[in-house]
């Protein structure tokens, strides 16, 4: 849609399209549909030639199109070859829920050298979405463990005070989870020359093979037990479809509501713009 608003204000556009069905309906002026997973519009990391080809193909439409067009990019992304191919080369202990904090700190200790290696080599880290500095990852662990163990969704647990948390509660929980996932994921994809896992393989590893995954599921249960149903939207934003105990991650929708209207109705509350309802 943004392309319509830009065109109507005199800026021509070309776009990469990931969901062809949406682009067909919105009739954008120039679109290159790419057969890549969501989150990867240029196809694949660390492959400048491939990325350049995708970019060129989208830009070329500016010279060639004379009416609205959706062109199909002809190549799949040269990635690791789909689901079930990747396996983690860093051996972590079996997930352990009897002492979440000790188990997650143990995992973080084992992953830290690889995380630091990745950060050094890439010159960046994506940890910090919640507002923490990368060196404050310990506080993210404290935060997630406290929430998983029932400290509630309305205030920062005492054990997690200190960092400059940049999101309001309850949504801060979702971004803290993302930060710890980023730490884990950057560590296990640190080896140069190896292909990163598919999205499904990465989710599977986090949720089936790590105590962090168990803690995220425990937060999911805290949400399920909470009286405020609007938290279920946050569970759907934290636990991918297919990973919530055989059920829909978003839970049962209130009668008469579809998922989009449910998301909309819970947004102000989750963004901390509304007092708790109970």
């Amino acid at each position, binding site marked *: *849609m*943004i*392309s319509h*608003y*830009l*065109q109507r*204000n*005199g*800026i021509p*556009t*070309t*776009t*990469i*399209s*990931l*969901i062809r069905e*949406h682009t067909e*309906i919105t*009739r954008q002026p120039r679109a290159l549909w790419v057969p*890549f*997973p969501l*989150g*990867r*519009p*240029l196809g*694949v*990391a660390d492959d*400048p030639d491939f990325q*350049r080809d995708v*970019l*060129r193909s989208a*830009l*070329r439409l500016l*010279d060639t199109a004379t009416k609205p067009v959706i062109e199909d990019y002809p190549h799949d992304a040269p*990635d690791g070859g789909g689901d079930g191919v990747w396996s983690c080369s860093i051996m972590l202990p079996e997930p352990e829920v009897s002492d979440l904090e000790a188990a997650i700190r143990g995992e973080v200790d084992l992953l830290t050298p690889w995380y630091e290696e990745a950060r050094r080599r*890439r*010159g*960046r880290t*994506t940890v*910090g*979405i919640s507002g923490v500095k990368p060196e404050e990852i310990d506080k993210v662990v404290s935060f997630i463990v406290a929430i998983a163990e029932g400290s509630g969704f309305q205030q920062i647990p005492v054990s997690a005070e200190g960092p400059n948390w940049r*999101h309001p509660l309850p949504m801060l929980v*979702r971004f803290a989870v993302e930060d710890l996932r*980023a730490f884990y*994921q950057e560590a296990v*994809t640190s080896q140069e020359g190896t292909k*990163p896992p*598919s999205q499904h393989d*990465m989710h599977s590893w986090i949720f089936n093979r790590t105590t962090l995954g168990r803690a995220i599921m425990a937060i999911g249960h805290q949400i399920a037990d909470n009286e405020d149903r609007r938290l279920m939207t946050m569970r759907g*934003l934290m636990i*991918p*479809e*297919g990973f919530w105990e055989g059920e*829909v991650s978003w839970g049962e929708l209130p009668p008469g509501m*579809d*998922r*989009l209207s449910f998301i*909309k109705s819970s*947004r102000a509350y989750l*963004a901390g713009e509304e007092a708790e309802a109970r």
Partner: protein
Amino acid sequence: MVRLSELHPEEAEHMLGRAALLKRSSFDFDATPWIMPKPLRESTIALISTAALHRRDDPAFRFGDTGYRLIPNDIDPAELVQSHISVNFDRTHYQRDLNVVLPIDRMRELAEAGEIGGVSPIHFSILGATESFLFERTGEEIARRLHDLGVDTAMLVPV
């Protein structure tokens, strides 16, 4: 790979729900004028990303945010984080290489090779999960900024 048939059925249904919403809207898609751009070789181009990227010291995107953030073309990628809300997209490639989401190095290379006229000194980022019809004012504002910057064309990159 992102054919809807390859998504989890719940996700596919959600995407179809969004499609239905677009279809039902009263927005007249055909009323948008066709603009012939300058030739690519003469065009200065800005990137518009829906990946909710922003600098670490910028305000993070709120859930439902309809605003935008500026990303200087010469940004150190270490300065960027991504406060997108959805869990249902792949982040591992982005964690390895910013260019898979925001191809600033590739744009610079195309400009150096003379394939495009130039790269905007500023790119723009929005939170793509917000309903797209709420971006009218932001679209106007970004267009105004692009004109001020002498940018000819926008390259939109979803996530």
